[in-house]
């Protein structure tokens, strides 16, 4: 097998699986096919490490930057599929979903994976745009899966805001092409990423500026940056929990990846407006805003959805600050956030099933009634709040120290936001995990393995990051400037 084959597999496997799942009745088999396909995709992605990388073509590309995202994407895709397999049957039993819904769900799951993988591996900004659009549309359908008022409303909101965002991103993409076209000539080459970045210094800076604004707002909507975040909390809280995990853990990253790509383009052109301040501003705004918004939350999934906004703010801030340390911190934070937030949603899914509610006020004493789940949730939430020894602590450590030395005022705002968010998360966590448990419980169906697996990874990386990962991050951090 060559790298090209692996790349091919990453894209084809989900499509094939989706096709198969559409045809297949019976949700149990579907669930495990879903897992198997995700596993194979992950293995293919992981094999990209060892195999020789295929040369970048007009459409696809594997480089240091996106391999991080691809492997992370397929990995969380896998664990979420495992969780989903153990989780989703319960939804059928409680009558929230029908078998037809489930068939649709599994097929869409793979479509979504395909969209995200394609977005991450594309070497063509047009293709990337298409792929992001595809991933968005498939998740819109997933969010609306329950057909409740709230779910439909969330999906509608997501759809409208996402469409507008994607339209703006498309305009940005067109502008980038227009900027590239005088230099690279007409046609496909002017949309190929590797060409763009090489020729970026000769692009019209004013064109790039306008393009970046549109791309930032467009893809920023997908990232969930405030004030473009509005779809995110509803979409997270109303869809099936595995999808919330995927949304928070993966889809946001995909959009972030797009923003990063274009940030690179901007930095490559010396005369263009520096993307850093814009990203810092949006990042801090998202962080502080989401931190405040965490306090009045009453729905547990919505709480963690806002926490995702907060963390996206932190990551965007980190990349906005730039420099080897901050970029390293941003990458690490992104990976950690994906792992941790999806772990949290795995736990929350179980909690919601056990308690039959997502209302924070009606969930109490989890560490008492369900120790493995409760403590898992405690650890995961503390990790996302930046408590050691999770990798989030390391990234926040690096980010705060380096940004305070360089931009003290910004770092103070950052610290304020972090603390504010910490206070809110801890407040809710204390209520949920401790105290006298509520009486009636449904049996727990969902598996705890993905949750603890993620936790183990988070702690492992936080304490002893594998050398390969470090070097890889450092290379990418250097690329990001």
């Amino acid at each position: 097998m060559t790298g090209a084959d692996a790349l091919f597999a990453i894209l084809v496997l989900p499509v094939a699986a989706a096709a198969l799942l559409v045809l297949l009745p019976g949700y149990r088999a579907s669930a495990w096919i879903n897992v198997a396909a995700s596993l194979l995709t992950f293995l293919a992605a992981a094999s990209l490490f060892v195999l020789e990388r295929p040369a970048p073509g007009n459409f696809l590309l594997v480089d240091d930057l996106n391999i991080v995202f691809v492997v992370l994407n397929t990995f969380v895709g896998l664990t979420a599929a495992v969780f989903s397999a153990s989780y989703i049957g319960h939804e059928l039993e409680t009558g929230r979903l029908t078998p037809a819904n489930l068939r649709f769900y599994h097929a869409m799951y793979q479509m979504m994976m395909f969209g995200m993988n394609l977005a991450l591996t594309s070497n063509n900004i047009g293709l990337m745009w298409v792929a992001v659009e595809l991933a968005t549309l498939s998740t819109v359908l997933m969010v609306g899966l329950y057909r409740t008022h709230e779910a439909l409303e969330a999906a509608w909101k997501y759809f409208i805001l996402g469409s507008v965002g994607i339209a703006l991103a498309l305009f940005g993409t067109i502008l980038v092409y227009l900027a590239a076209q005088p230099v690279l000539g007409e046609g496909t080459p002017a949309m190929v990423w590797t060409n763009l970045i090489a020729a970026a210094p000769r692009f019209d800076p004013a064109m790039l500026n306008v393009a970046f604004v549109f791309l930032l707002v467009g893809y920023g909507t997908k990232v969930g940056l405030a004030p473009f975040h509005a779809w995110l909390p509803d979409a997270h809280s109303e869809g099936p929990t595995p999808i919330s995990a995927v949304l928070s853990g993966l889809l946001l990253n995909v959009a972030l990846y797009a923003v990063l790509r274009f940030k690179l383009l901007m930095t490559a052109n010396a005369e263009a407006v520096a993307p850093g301040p814009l990203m810092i501003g949006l990042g801090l705004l998202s962080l502080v805003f989401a931190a405040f918004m965490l306090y009045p939350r009453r729905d547990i999934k919505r709480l963690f959805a806002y926490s995702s906004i907060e963390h996206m703010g932190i990551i965007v801030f980190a990349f906005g600050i730039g420099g080897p340390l901050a970029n390293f911190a941003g990458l690490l934070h992104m990976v950690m956030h994906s792992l941790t937030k999806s772990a949290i949603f795995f736990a929350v899914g179980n909690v919601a099933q056990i308690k039959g509610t997502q209302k924070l006020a009606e969930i109490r004493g989890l560490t008492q009634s369900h120790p493995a789940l409760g403590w898992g949730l405690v650890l995961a939430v503390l990790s996302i709040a930046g408590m050691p020894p999770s990798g989030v602590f390391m990234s926040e450590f690096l980010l705060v120290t380096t940004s305070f030395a360089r931009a003290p005022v910004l770092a103070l705002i950052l610290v304020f936001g972090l603390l504010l968010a910490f206070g809110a998360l801890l407040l809710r966590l204390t209520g949920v995990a401790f105290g006298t448990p509520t009486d009636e419980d449904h049996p727990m169906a969902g598996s705890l393995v993905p949750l603890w697996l993620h936790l183990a990874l988070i702690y492992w990386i936080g304490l002893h990051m594998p050398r390969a990962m470090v070097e890889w991050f450092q290379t990418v951090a250097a690329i990001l400037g």
Partner: protein
Amino acid sequence: MHDLAFDIAHLLAGSLVLVSFMMIYQDRLYALLNTFALQALLLAMAVAWQAFTRDAPHLYATAAIALIFKAIIVPWALHRVVARMGIQRTVETVTGVVPTMLAGMGLVALSILLMLQLTEAAENPLAREDLAFALSVILLGMLMMVTRRNAVTQVVGFMSLENGLILAAAGAQGMPLVVEISVAFSVLIAMIVIGVFLFRIRERFDSVDTEALDAFRGERR
């Protein structure tokens, strides 16, 4: 020849902006849909003209998509939706028409200012002009989305926004077909999904007014 081509393209793009203003001005749903159809028609013409002058046959496809799909099918479908659902025939606006028009003027001014800043090196003034108009159409479409309460109107606003996108894409020389197809594709999917949702929403609510949805926000109860 070149000057004439330029002028015609300019004229078409400019009229697209004009029609955008007309859409803002409409206070009847049917009239709005008709105006939208007009805009789609103009778009098709503009794209076709580009295809003609630039000898880029693939743009004809785009023009055809715009013509058939946006100028005919979608307005027709929306007419049906409005009729069948018995949606209120007037456009519910947030602010008066005049302030919206003024804001629209400002947006057009902004787009022109922005695009004028492009360096002279952008050797193709046509692209630049087109771009300014396209940006105006996009912004006006969005303005319509935020100043209208009715879901159908918002959908129209969104499609008007996409018209602007296509205008920009068509104005970009040599832009690969992938873009047009994807735009068409997205509109198609948008329509399907919107249809699905309108249908669902219609099933459960008495109006497609999206503000009515807001009572069902997860936390307000």
